[in-house]
């Protein structure tokens, strides 16, 4: 009912249109998929793969150019895992943490920096994939599975001691926490990305030129902080289940 767009019917304002709740549906094997998310996700994946392929080909002892940047990024991501999980056992989790960070970061920036509005779709619009709640819920559930796996593989069945750890009275709260963690992770990312896009769109609707630029810059900053927060929290959850209480 409310799914019409906030657009002023004037051709100049077409670029500042904002659509919420409209999707390009693909019917595959009885499932309805949000096509615009897939398209942008594939572009993001391709960009990441190409960057890594170029950065890691022709490796040198003294890094230069893109290889230098790659090593800087790798150390930054390694530090996230190391700070949260600890010096002893952070290494197996660096790939997961850095994948999550890079994917979310590239998605957010791709949604903000590439002028998607120039490409017309039959329905819906291309934007950051993270402004679809299905994507963020999937990422948050990945984090949940990862910390379950981390705890179970390190402690075996002793992992479930965590639920009754200070006293058995806290059992319901500890179980509830397993549900609130992915909920808050996914809502935080989804809401922030969507809020950035809405604010920019509303500003662009009011004043189409120059005024939205500072807000766009703020959005870029905020979305990179969100990527950092998502990966830091994932690392913190993994570190939490692996630490010893003895």
């Amino acid at each position, binding site marked *: *009912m*409310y*799914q019409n767009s906030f657009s002023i019917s004037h051709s100049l304002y077409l670029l500042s249109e904002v659509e*919420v*709740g409209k999707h390009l549906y693909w019917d595959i094997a009885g499932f309805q998929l949000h096509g615009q998310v897939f398209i942008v996700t594939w572009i993001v994946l391709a960009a990441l793969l190409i960057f890594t392929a170029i950065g890691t080909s022709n490796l040198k002892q003294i890094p230069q150019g893109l290889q230098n940047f790659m090593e800087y990024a790798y150390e930054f991501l390694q530090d996230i895992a190391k700070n949260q999980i600890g010096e002893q056992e952070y290494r197996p989790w660096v790939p997961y943490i850095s994948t999550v960070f890079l994917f979310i970061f590239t998605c957010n920036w791709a949604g903000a920096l590439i002028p998607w509005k120039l490409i017309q779709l039959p329905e819906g619009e291309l934007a950051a994939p993270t402004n679809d709640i299905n994507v963020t819920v999937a990422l948050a559930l990945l984090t949940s599975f990862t910390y379950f796996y981390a705890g179970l593989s390190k402690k075996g069945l002793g992992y479930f001691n965590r639920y009754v750890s200070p006293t058995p009275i806290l059992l319901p709260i500890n179980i509830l926490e397993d549900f609130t963690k992915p909920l*808050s992770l996914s*809502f*935080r990312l*989804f*809401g*922030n990305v*969507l*809020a950035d896009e809405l604010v920019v769109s509303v500003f662009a609707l009011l004043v189409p030129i120059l005024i939205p630029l500072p807000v766009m810059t703020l959005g870029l900053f*905020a979305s990179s*902080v*969100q990527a*950092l*927060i998502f990966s*830091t929290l994932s690392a913190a959850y993994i570190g939490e289940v692996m630490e010893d209480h003895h």
Partner: protein
Amino acid sequence: MNPIVSAASVVASGLAVGLAAIGPGIGQGTAAAQAVEGIARQPEAEGRIRGTLLLSLAFMESLTIYGLVVSLALLFANPFTS
């Protein structure tokens, strides 16, 4: 569709963001004030304080964002407008 339901949804979506902004606003103010105090006391720790401050500000901001998610759900995916 019921006009009362739609009017109430619009009012509620406005209130959801507005009320959700109060608490995090106070919290962010307190955190920023403490960070400024910390930097004034120990200027050499500025980098670490700034990093921690930004991270915690983003955490507080996410509380407002939850309100925003609720209001967006009321506006664009309202379960009560059948």
